[in-house]
Protein backbone atom coordinates (compact mmCIF):
# COMPACT_ATOMS: atom_id res chain seq x y z
CA UNK A 1 0.00 0.00 0.00
CA UNK A 2 2.98 2.31 -0.13
CA UNK A 3 1.85 3.67 -3.46
CA UNK A 4 -1.10 5.40 -1.86
CA UNK A 5 1.11 7.51 0.38
CA UNK A 6 2.97 9.00 -2.53
CA UNK A 7 2.70 12.55 -3.72
CA UNK A 8 -0.21 12.46 -6.12
CA UNK A 9 -0.10 16.11 -7.07
CA UNK A 10 2.61 15.11 -9.55
CA UNK A 11 4.46 18.34 -8.86
CA UNK A 12 7.75 16.64 -9.71
CA UNK A 13 6.51 15.67 -13.16
CA UNK A 14 5.18 19.18 -13.74
CA UNK A 15 8.56 20.62 -12.74
CA UNK A 16 10.21 18.24 -15.19
CA UNK A 17 7.80 19.34 -17.91
CA UNK A 18 8.77 22.94 -17.20
CA UNK A 19 12.45 22.09 -17.55
CA UNK A 20 11.91 20.41 -20.91
CA UNK A 21 9.72 23.31 -22.03
CA UNK A 22 12.51 25.72 -21.13
CA UNK A 23 14.83 23.67 -23.30
CA UNK A 24 12.30 23.67 -26.09
CA UNK A 25 12.05 27.43 -26.04
CA UNK A 26 15.80 27.79 -25.43
CA UNK A 27 15.16 29.93 -22.36
CA UNK A 28 18.26 30.88 -20.46
CA UNK A 29 21.59 29.29 -21.17
CA UNK A 30 20.35 26.06 -22.70
CA UNK A 31 21.89 25.97 -26.14
CA UNK A 32 21.98 23.34 -28.86
CA UNK A 33 25.53 22.18 -29.32
CA UNK A 34 24.95 19.68 -32.12
CA UNK A 35 27.41 19.86 -34.98
CA UNK A 36 25.95 18.72 -38.27
CA UNK A 37 28.93 16.71 -39.16
CA UNK A 38 29.43 16.34 -42.87
CA UNK A 39 28.38 19.95 -43.41
CA UNK A 40 29.99 21.51 -40.40
CA UNK A 41 33.17 20.28 -38.85
CA UNK A 42 34.23 20.35 -35.30
CA UNK A 43 37.06 22.64 -34.39
CA UNK A 44 39.69 20.47 -32.77
CA UNK A 45 42.31 21.89 -30.50
CA UNK A 46 45.86 22.55 -31.77
CA UNK A 47 47.02 19.61 -29.67
CA UNK A 48 44.65 17.19 -31.31
CA UNK A 49 46.22 13.81 -31.98
CA UNK A 50 45.16 12.90 -35.47
CA UNK A 51 47.08 11.67 -38.49
CA UNK A 52 50.85 11.77 -38.16
CA UNK A 53 53.17 14.02 -40.06
CA UNK A 54 56.92 13.67 -40.29
CA UNK A 55 59.31 16.51 -40.89
CA UNK A 56 61.26 15.53 -43.97
CA UNK A 57 64.38 17.44 -43.02
CA UNK A 58 64.44 16.69 -39.33
CA UNK A 59 63.79 12.94 -39.30
CA UNK A 60 66.93 10.92 -39.15
CA UNK A 61 65.29 7.55 -39.48
CA UNK A 62 66.57 6.46 -36.12
CA UNK A 63 63.62 4.14 -35.41
CA UNK A 64 63.11 5.24 -31.83
CA UNK A 65 59.46 5.87 -32.62
CA UNK A 66 59.24 2.36 -34.04
CA UNK A 67 60.61 0.85 -30.86
CA UNK A 68 58.46 2.90 -28.56
CA UNK A 69 55.16 2.44 -30.30
CA UNK A 70 53.09 0.09 -28.13
CA UNK A 71 51.34 -1.47 -31.09
CA UNK A 72 54.09 -1.90 -33.63
CA UNK A 73 52.35 0.58 -35.86
CA UNK A 74 55.45 2.21 -37.21
CA UNK A 75 57.90 0.69 -39.64
CA UNK A 76 60.97 2.41 -40.94
CA UNK A 77 61.06 2.18 -44.74
CA UNK A 78 63.29 3.52 -47.40
CA UNK A 79 62.03 6.52 -49.31
CA UNK A 80 64.08 8.58 -51.75
CA UNK A 81 67.49 7.53 -50.50
CA UNK A 82 66.63 8.12 -46.84
CA UNK A 83 64.79 6.17 -44.18
CA UNK A 84 61.47 7.38 -42.86
CA UNK A 85 58.70 5.97 -40.69
CA UNK A 86 55.62 4.45 -42.27
CA UNK A 87 52.50 4.43 -40.09
CA UNK A 88 49.75 1.85 -40.30
CA UNK A 89 46.81 3.93 -39.08
CA UNK A 90 44.65 0.82 -38.74
CA UNK A 91 46.76 -0.29 -35.79
CA UNK A 92 47.42 3.11 -34.27
CA UNK A 93 46.12 4.06 -30.83
CA UNK A 94 46.79 7.75 -31.43
CA UNK A 95 48.53 7.75 -28.10
CA UNK A 96 51.22 10.18 -29.13
CA UNK A 97 54.10 8.23 -27.61
CA UNK A 98 55.98 8.33 -30.90
CA UNK A 99 55.76 12.10 -30.84
CA UNK A 100 57.05 12.23 -27.28
CA UNK A 101 60.06 10.05 -27.89
CA UNK A 102 61.30 11.46 -31.16
CA UNK A 103 64.72 12.90 -30.43
CA UNK A 104 64.58 15.29 -33.36
CA UNK A 105 60.99 16.48 -32.84
CA UNK A 106 60.38 15.28 -36.35
CA UNK A 107 57.19 13.35 -35.63
CA UNK A 108 54.04 15.43 -35.26
CA UNK A 109 50.36 14.78 -35.15
CA UNK A 110 47.94 16.85 -37.18
CA UNK A 111 44.28 17.67 -36.61
CA UNK A 112 43.19 15.40 -39.44
CA UNK A 113 40.72 12.89 -38.01
CA UNK A 114 38.84 11.80 -41.10
CA UNK A 115 40.85 8.69 -41.75
CA UNK A 116 38.24 6.18 -42.85
CA UNK A 117 39.14 4.40 -46.03
CA UNK A 118 38.01 1.65 -48.34
CA UNK A 119 40.78 -0.85 -47.91
CA UNK A 120 43.27 -1.93 -45.32
CA UNK A 121 46.11 -1.24 -47.68
CA UNK A 122 45.22 2.40 -47.98
CA UNK A 123 45.39 2.73 -44.21
CA UNK A 124 49.13 2.27 -44.40
CA UNK A 125 50.51 5.76 -44.67
CA UNK A 126 53.89 5.63 -46.30
CA UNK A 127 56.44 8.43 -46.13
CA UNK A 128 55.02 9.85 -49.38
CA UNK A 129 51.84 10.77 -47.51
CA UNK A 130 53.36 11.59 -44.15
CA UNK A 131 56.28 13.80 -44.98
CA UNK A 132 56.08 17.53 -44.90
CA UNK A 133 58.74 20.07 -45.46
CA UNK A 134 59.11 22.47 -42.61
CA UNK A 135 60.53 25.27 -44.73
CA UNK A 136 57.69 25.09 -47.17
CA UNK A 137 55.08 24.95 -44.43
CA UNK A 138 56.27 28.00 -42.62
Amino acid sequence: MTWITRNWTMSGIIKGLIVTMKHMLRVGNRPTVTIQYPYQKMKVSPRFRGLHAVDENACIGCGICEVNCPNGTIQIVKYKTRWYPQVNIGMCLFCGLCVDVCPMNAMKMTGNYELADYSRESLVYGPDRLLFNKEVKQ
Partner: protein
Amino acid sequence: MKTDELLINMGPVHPSTHGVLRFKLTMDGEIIRNCEIVMGYLHRGTEKLGEMKTYMQFVPYTDRLDYMSAFANNYAYVKAVEELAGIEVPLRAEYIRVLTLELNRIVNHLVMIGSLLLDLGASTMIMYGFRERENALALFDMLCGARMTFNYIKPGGVREDMPEGFIPKLNEFINDMDKRIDDYEQLVSGNEIFMGRMKGIGVMSAQDAINYGMTGPSLRGHGVNYDIRKLEPYSVYPDLDFKVCVRNECDSFARYMVRIDEMRESLHILRQVVDAMPPAKPASQAKYGIAPMTGAPTAVSTYFPRIFTPPPGEVYSRIEAPKGELGFYIVSDGTIKPYRIKIRSPSFCNLTAIPKMVEGLMIPDLIAAFGTIDVVLGDVDR
Protein backbone atom coordinates in the same frame (compact mmCIF):
# COMPACT_ATOMS: atom_id res chain seq x y z
CA MET B 1 -2.68 -25.29 -14.26
CA LYS B 2 0.88 -26.33 -14.79
CA THR B 3 3.29 -23.45 -14.70
CA ASP B 4 6.92 -23.43 -15.53
CA GLU B 5 9.81 -21.17 -14.78
CA LEU B 6 10.91 -19.20 -17.78
CA LEU B 7 14.57 -18.90 -18.64
CA ILE B 8 15.43 -15.61 -20.27
CA ASN B 9 18.79 -14.75 -21.68
CA MET B 10 19.12 -11.03 -21.28
CA GLY B 11 22.03 -10.12 -23.44
CA PRO B 12 24.78 -10.27 -24.57
CA VAL B 13 23.02 -8.11 -27.14
CA HIS B 14 20.35 -6.18 -25.35
CA PRO B 15 19.59 -2.47 -25.26
CA SER B 16 20.23 -1.97 -21.58
CA THR B 17 23.15 -4.13 -20.60
CA HIS B 18 25.57 -1.31 -21.41
CA GLY B 19 27.59 -3.41 -23.76
CA VAL B 20 28.00 -7.13 -23.91
CA LEU B 21 26.89 -8.58 -20.64
CA ARG B 22 24.56 -11.50 -20.26
CA PHE B 23 22.07 -12.08 -17.50
CA LYS B 24 20.67 -15.56 -17.27
CA LEU B 25 17.34 -14.94 -15.62
CA THR B 26 15.06 -17.57 -14.22
CA MET B 27 11.69 -15.92 -14.25
CA ASP B 28 8.45 -16.71 -12.53
CA GLY B 29 6.21 -14.64 -14.77
CA GLU B 30 7.61 -11.16 -14.32
CA ILE B 31 9.46 -11.98 -11.11
CA ILE B 32 13.15 -12.79 -11.17
CA ARG B 33 13.82 -15.92 -9.17
CA ASN B 34 17.45 -16.30 -10.00
CA CYS B 35 19.91 -14.12 -11.80
CA GLU B 36 23.22 -15.33 -13.05
CA ILE B 37 25.76 -13.00 -14.57
CA VAL B 38 27.78 -14.23 -17.51
CA MET B 39 30.63 -11.94 -18.35
CA GLY B 40 33.77 -12.07 -20.39
CA TYR B 41 32.39 -11.15 -23.79
CA LEU B 42 34.67 -8.15 -23.90
CA HIS B 43 37.79 -9.78 -22.54
CA ARG B 44 40.83 -8.32 -24.24
CA GLY B 45 43.57 -9.59 -21.97
CA THR B 46 44.61 -6.16 -20.84
CA GLU B 47 46.51 -7.49 -17.85
CA LYS B 48 48.50 -9.81 -20.05
CA LEU B 49 49.09 -7.00 -22.52
CA GLY B 50 50.64 -5.04 -19.71
CA GLU B 51 53.22 -7.71 -19.26
CA MET B 52 54.18 -7.41 -22.92
CA LYS B 53 54.71 -3.65 -22.89
CA THR B 54 57.13 -1.40 -21.16
CA TYR B 55 55.89 0.67 -18.27
CA MET B 56 55.40 3.70 -20.48
CA GLN B 57 53.73 1.83 -23.29
CA PHE B 58 51.03 0.40 -21.09
CA VAL B 59 49.56 3.80 -20.18
CA PRO B 60 47.46 4.17 -23.35
CA TYR B 61 45.98 0.74 -22.74
CA THR B 62 44.64 1.77 -19.36
CA ASP B 63 42.55 4.38 -21.18
CA ARG B 64 40.57 1.54 -22.66
CA LEU B 65 39.58 -0.12 -19.42
CA ASP B 66 36.93 2.21 -18.20
CA TYR B 67 36.60 4.50 -21.13
CA MET B 68 34.19 6.79 -19.32
CA SER B 69 36.84 7.80 -16.81
CA ALA B 70 40.12 7.22 -18.57
CA PHE B 71 42.00 9.77 -16.49
CA ALA B 72 41.34 7.77 -13.36
CA ASN B 73 42.76 4.65 -14.99
CA ASN B 74 45.79 6.53 -16.25
CA TYR B 75 46.36 7.93 -12.84
CA ALA B 76 45.86 4.69 -10.94
CA TYR B 77 48.43 2.92 -13.06
CA VAL B 78 50.89 5.79 -13.08
CA LYS B 79 50.58 6.15 -9.34
CA ALA B 80 51.50 2.49 -8.92
CA VAL B 81 54.52 2.89 -11.19
CA GLU B 82 55.62 6.00 -9.36
CA GLU B 83 55.33 4.24 -6.03
CA LEU B 84 57.32 1.36 -7.41
CA ALA B 85 60.11 3.58 -8.62
CA GLY B 86 59.84 6.24 -5.95
CA ILE B 87 59.39 9.13 -8.34
CA GLU B 88 58.52 12.56 -7.04
CA VAL B 89 56.03 14.58 -9.05
CA PRO B 90 55.98 18.38 -9.36
CA LEU B 91 53.21 20.02 -7.41
CA ARG B 92 51.71 21.69 -10.45
CA ALA B 93 51.44 18.31 -12.15
CA GLU B 94 49.63 16.91 -9.13
CA TYR B 95 47.14 19.76 -9.25
CA ILE B 96 46.57 19.24 -12.94
CA ARG B 97 46.02 15.55 -12.25
CA VAL B 98 43.44 16.25 -9.58
CA LEU B 99 41.77 18.70 -11.92
CA THR B 100 41.45 16.10 -14.64
CA LEU B 101 40.36 13.43 -12.17
CA GLU B 102 37.54 15.51 -10.79
CA LEU B 103 36.47 16.73 -14.21
CA ASN B 104 36.44 13.12 -15.25
CA ARG B 105 34.31 12.23 -12.25
CA ILE B 106 31.71 14.73 -13.38
CA VAL B 107 31.76 13.36 -16.91
CA ASN B 108 31.42 9.82 -15.66
CA HIS B 109 28.48 10.65 -13.42
CA LEU B 110 26.80 12.58 -16.21
CA VAL B 111 26.93 9.55 -18.44
CA MET B 112 25.86 7.28 -15.61
CA ILE B 113 22.80 9.35 -14.78
CA GLY B 114 21.97 9.75 -18.43
CA SER B 115 22.12 6.07 -19.19
CA LEU B 116 20.25 5.20 -16.02
CA LEU B 117 17.41 7.44 -17.12
CA LEU B 118 17.62 6.07 -20.62
CA ASP B 119 17.24 2.58 -19.22
CA LEU B 120 14.18 3.74 -17.36
CA GLY B 121 12.74 5.07 -20.60
CA ALA B 122 13.36 8.80 -20.22
CA SER B 123 15.49 9.61 -23.21
CA THR B 124 16.05 13.28 -22.50
CA MET B 125 18.47 13.25 -19.61
CA ILE B 126 21.21 11.49 -21.55
CA MET B 127 21.13 14.21 -24.18
CA TYR B 128 21.54 16.92 -21.58
CA GLY B 129 24.29 14.91 -19.95
CA PHE B 130 26.04 14.46 -23.26
CA ARG B 131 25.76 18.15 -24.03
CA GLU B 132 27.65 19.00 -20.87
CA ARG B 133 30.01 16.12 -21.44
CA GLU B 134 30.74 17.59 -24.84
CA ASN B 135 31.99 20.77 -23.18
CA ALA B 136 34.13 18.75 -20.82
CA LEU B 137 35.50 16.71 -23.70
CA ALA B 138 36.43 19.92 -25.48
CA LEU B 139 38.39 20.84 -22.35
CA PHE B 140 40.11 17.46 -22.40
CA ASP B 141 40.84 17.95 -26.06
CA MET B 142 42.51 21.27 -25.30
CA LEU B 143 44.49 19.71 -22.52
CA CYS B 144 45.76 16.52 -24.06
CA GLY B 145 44.70 16.33 -27.68
CA ALA B 146 42.22 13.52 -27.33
CA ARG B 147 38.62 13.38 -26.29
CA MET B 148 38.31 9.99 -24.67
CA THR B 149 41.58 8.11 -24.69
CA PHE B 150 43.86 10.64 -23.13
CA ASN B 151 47.23 9.07 -22.35
CA TYR B 152 47.87 12.30 -20.54
CA ILE B 153 49.08 11.34 -17.11
CA LYS B 154 52.47 9.75 -17.46
CA PRO B 155 54.94 8.46 -14.88
CA GLY B 156 56.64 11.51 -13.50
CA GLY B 157 53.93 14.04 -14.17
CA VAL B 158 51.65 14.90 -17.03
CA ARG B 159 52.50 15.14 -20.68
CA GLU B 160 52.07 18.83 -21.17
CA ASP B 161 51.13 21.87 -19.22
CA MET B 162 47.73 23.44 -19.57
CA PRO B 163 47.39 25.47 -22.76
CA GLU B 164 46.52 29.12 -22.67
CA GLY B 165 42.85 29.83 -22.32
CA PHE B 166 42.19 26.61 -20.51
CA ILE B 167 41.41 28.01 -17.09
CA PRO B 168 38.85 30.59 -18.31
CA LYS B 169 37.08 27.85 -20.25
CA LEU B 170 37.15 25.61 -17.23
CA ASN B 171 35.65 28.33 -15.08
CA GLU B 172 32.92 28.81 -17.64
CA PHE B 173 32.21 25.09 -17.53
CA ILE B 174 32.10 25.03 -13.74
CA ASN B 175 29.69 27.94 -13.60
CA ASP B 176 27.47 26.40 -16.27
CA MET B 177 27.43 23.05 -14.54
CA ASP B 178 26.02 24.49 -11.33
CA LYS B 179 22.86 25.57 -13.08
CA ARG B 180 22.71 22.48 -15.22
CA ILE B 181 22.79 20.20 -12.18
CA ASP B 182 19.86 22.16 -10.79
CA ASP B 183 18.08 21.43 -14.05
CA TYR B 184 18.79 17.72 -13.74
CA GLU B 185 17.53 17.66 -10.22
CA GLN B 186 14.32 19.35 -11.28
CA LEU B 187 13.90 17.10 -14.26
CA VAL B 188 14.78 13.83 -12.60
CA SER B 189 15.16 13.72 -8.85
CA GLY B 190 11.71 15.02 -7.99
CA ASN B 191 9.88 13.05 -10.63
CA GLU B 192 7.29 10.84 -9.00
CA ILE B 193 7.60 8.09 -11.55
CA PHE B 194 11.36 8.10 -11.15
CA MET B 195 11.05 7.89 -7.38
CA GLY B 196 8.53 5.11 -7.72
CA ARG B 197 10.99 3.24 -9.87
CA MET B 198 14.00 3.85 -7.64
CA LYS B 199 12.93 4.10 -4.03
CA GLY B 200 13.02 0.84 -2.18
CA ILE B 201 14.35 -1.01 -5.24
CA GLY B 202 17.60 -2.92 -5.25
CA VAL B 203 17.92 -2.73 -1.51
CA MET B 204 20.90 -4.41 0.03
CA SER B 205 22.25 -4.01 3.53
CA ALA B 206 25.53 -2.19 4.05
CA GLN B 207 27.05 -5.38 5.40
CA ASP B 208 26.14 -7.29 2.25
CA ALA B 209 27.45 -4.50 0.09
CA ILE B 210 30.79 -4.60 1.86
CA ASN B 211 30.89 -8.37 1.66
CA TYR B 212 30.38 -8.23 -2.07
CA GLY B 213 33.29 -5.83 -2.34
CA MET B 214 31.29 -2.89 -3.55
CA THR B 215 33.12 0.40 -3.47
CA GLY B 216 32.71 3.94 -4.61
CA PRO B 217 29.46 5.83 -4.93
CA SER B 218 27.53 2.59 -5.11
CA LEU B 219 28.75 1.67 -1.63
CA ARG B 220 28.30 5.16 -0.27
CA GLY B 221 24.63 4.89 -1.16
CA HIS B 222 24.52 2.20 1.50
CA GLY B 223 25.60 4.54 4.25
CA VAL B 224 29.21 3.43 4.37
CA ASN B 225 31.62 6.31 4.64
CA TYR B 226 34.35 4.83 2.50
CA ASP B 227 36.36 7.07 0.24
CA ILE B 228 39.99 6.41 -0.50
CA ARG B 229 40.59 10.09 -1.06
CA LYS B 230 40.01 10.49 2.67
CA LEU B 231 41.11 7.14 4.05
CA GLU B 232 44.38 6.85 2.22
CA PRO B 233 44.97 10.33 0.89
CA TYR B 234 46.97 10.60 -2.28
CA SER B 235 48.03 13.42 -4.58
CA VAL B 236 46.95 16.80 -3.22
CA TYR B 237 43.63 15.66 -1.82
CA PRO B 238 44.73 16.23 1.79
CA ASP B 239 45.06 19.94 1.00
CA LEU B 240 41.59 20.20 -0.47
CA ASP B 241 38.40 20.66 1.40
CA PHE B 242 35.66 18.29 0.39
CA LYS B 243 33.23 16.01 2.07
CA VAL B 244 32.34 12.44 1.31
CA CYS B 245 28.79 12.15 0.04
CA VAL B 246 26.94 9.38 1.85
CA ARG B 247 23.28 8.37 1.73
CA ASN B 248 21.74 5.91 4.10
CA GLU B 249 18.71 4.51 2.27
CA CYS B 250 20.59 1.58 0.69
CA ASP B 251 18.35 1.65 -2.39
CA SER B 252 18.74 2.66 -6.01
CA PHE B 253 17.59 6.19 -5.31
CA ALA B 254 20.30 6.68 -2.70
CA ARG B 255 22.92 5.42 -5.11
CA TYR B 256 21.66 7.86 -7.71
CA MET B 257 21.60 10.79 -5.29
CA VAL B 258 25.18 10.10 -4.24
CA ARG B 259 26.17 10.74 -7.83
CA ILE B 260 24.38 14.08 -7.96
CA ASP B 261 25.97 15.13 -4.67
CA GLU B 262 29.38 14.03 -5.88
CA MET B 263 29.09 16.12 -9.00
CA ARG B 264 28.49 19.19 -6.88
CA GLU B 265 31.35 18.20 -4.60
CA SER B 266 33.63 17.74 -7.59
CA LEU B 267 32.75 21.22 -8.80
CA HIS B 268 33.68 22.46 -5.35
CA ILE B 269 37.03 20.68 -5.57
CA LEU B 270 37.62 22.04 -9.07
CA ARG B 271 37.14 25.60 -7.87
CA GLN B 272 39.72 25.05 -5.14
CA VAL B 273 42.14 23.46 -7.55
CA VAL B 274 41.84 26.38 -9.95
CA ASP B 275 42.56 28.79 -7.10
CA ALA B 276 45.40 26.81 -5.61
CA MET B 277 47.12 25.91 -8.87
CA PRO B 278 50.84 26.69 -8.53
CA PRO B 279 52.04 29.11 -11.21
CA ALA B 280 53.61 27.70 -14.32
CA LYS B 281 57.20 28.33 -15.15
CA PRO B 282 57.52 30.11 -18.50
CA ALA B 283 59.51 27.27 -19.98
CA SER B 284 56.60 24.90 -19.64
CA GLN B 285 54.40 26.87 -22.02
CA ALA B 286 55.85 24.89 -24.90
CA LYS B 287 53.39 24.12 -27.66
CA TYR B 288 52.61 20.63 -28.70
CA GLY B 289 55.07 19.11 -31.06
CA ILE B 290 58.12 20.96 -29.86
CA ALA B 291 57.65 19.63 -26.36
CA PRO B 292 60.78 18.27 -24.76
CA MET B 293 61.29 14.62 -25.43
CA THR B 294 60.50 11.99 -22.85
CA GLY B 295 62.83 11.94 -19.96
CA ALA B 296 63.68 15.59 -19.83
CA PRO B 297 62.15 17.25 -16.79
CA THR B 298 59.65 20.03 -17.35
CA ALA B 299 57.52 22.13 -15.05
CA VAL B 300 54.90 19.42 -15.03
CA SER B 301 56.97 16.30 -15.06
CA THR B 302 60.11 15.02 -13.44
CA TYR B 303 62.81 12.94 -14.99
CA PHE B 304 61.57 9.64 -16.25
CA PRO B 305 64.14 7.58 -18.11
CA ARG B 306 63.26 6.32 -21.54
CA ILE B 307 64.54 2.89 -20.62
CA PHE B 308 62.95 2.53 -17.26
CA THR B 309 63.87 -0.39 -15.06
CA PRO B 310 62.33 -0.16 -11.61
CA PRO B 311 63.85 -2.11 -8.77
CA PRO B 312 62.43 -5.61 -8.31
CA GLY B 313 59.49 -5.61 -6.00
CA GLU B 314 55.76 -5.29 -5.92
CA VAL B 315 53.30 -2.55 -5.26
CA TYR B 316 49.55 -2.22 -4.88
CA SER B 317 48.16 1.22 -5.23
CA ARG B 318 44.57 2.27 -5.28
CA ILE B 319 42.63 5.39 -5.96
CA GLU B 320 39.03 6.47 -5.74
CA ALA B 321 37.94 6.24 -9.36
CA PRO B 322 34.49 7.58 -10.24
CA LYS B 323 33.14 4.05 -10.10
CA GLY B 324 34.90 2.92 -6.96
CA GLU B 325 38.20 1.60 -5.80
CA LEU B 326 40.54 1.12 -8.72
CA GLY B 327 43.73 -0.67 -7.83
CA PHE B 328 46.78 -1.71 -9.80
CA TYR B 329 49.04 -4.43 -8.52
CA ILE B 330 52.40 -4.49 -10.25
CA VAL B 331 55.18 -6.99 -9.76
CA SER B 332 58.50 -5.91 -11.14
CA ASP B 333 61.44 -8.22 -11.77
CA GLY B 334 63.82 -5.40 -12.56
CA THR B 335 63.45 -5.57 -16.35
CA ILE B 336 61.86 -3.01 -18.60
CA LYS B 337 58.54 -4.82 -18.54
CA PRO B 338 56.39 -5.57 -15.53
CA TYR B 339 56.35 -9.19 -14.46
CA ARG B 340 52.68 -9.16 -13.57
CA ILE B 341 49.90 -6.63 -13.61
CA LYS B 342 46.63 -7.18 -11.84
CA ILE B 343 43.81 -4.73 -12.07
CA ARG B 344 41.23 -4.47 -9.32
CA SER B 345 38.44 -2.84 -11.26
CA PRO B 346 35.48 -1.31 -9.46
CA SER B 347 32.90 -2.25 -12.08
CA PHE B 348 33.66 -5.95 -11.77
CA CYS B 349 33.29 -6.07 -8.00
CA ASN B 350 30.22 -3.87 -7.96
CA LEU B 351 28.56 -5.93 -10.65
CA THR B 352 28.77 -9.13 -8.65
CA ALA B 353 26.30 -7.70 -6.16
CA ILE B 354 23.51 -7.52 -8.74
CA PRO B 355 22.06 -11.05 -8.31
CA LYS B 356 21.63 -10.52 -4.60
CA MET B 357 20.13 -7.10 -5.19
CA VAL B 358 17.45 -8.10 -7.65
CA GLU B 359 16.22 -11.37 -6.22
CA GLY B 360 12.44 -11.31 -6.22
CA LEU B 361 12.22 -8.11 -8.24
CA MET B 362 11.20 -7.65 -11.86
CA ILE B 363 13.11 -7.07 -15.06
CA PRO B 364 12.50 -3.30 -14.94
CA ASP B 365 13.96 -3.27 -11.43
CA LEU B 366 16.95 -5.26 -12.56
CA ILE B 367 17.59 -2.60 -15.16
CA ALA B 368 17.16 0.21 -12.65
CA ALA B 369 19.48 -1.43 -10.11
CA PHE B 370 21.99 -2.27 -12.80
CA GLY B 371 21.96 1.33 -13.98
CA THR B 372 22.72 2.66 -10.53
CA ILE B 373 25.70 0.33 -10.13
CA ASP B 374 27.32 2.17 -13.03
CA VAL B 375 29.19 -0.48 -14.91
CA VAL B 376 31.38 -0.13 -17.95
CA LEU B 377 31.92 -3.46 -19.59
CA GLY B 378 35.42 -2.58 -20.68
CA ASP B 379 36.23 -2.36 -17.01
CA VAL B 380 34.42 -5.54 -16.04
CA ASP B 381 36.01 -7.86 -18.56
CA ARG B 382 39.32 -6.06 -19.02
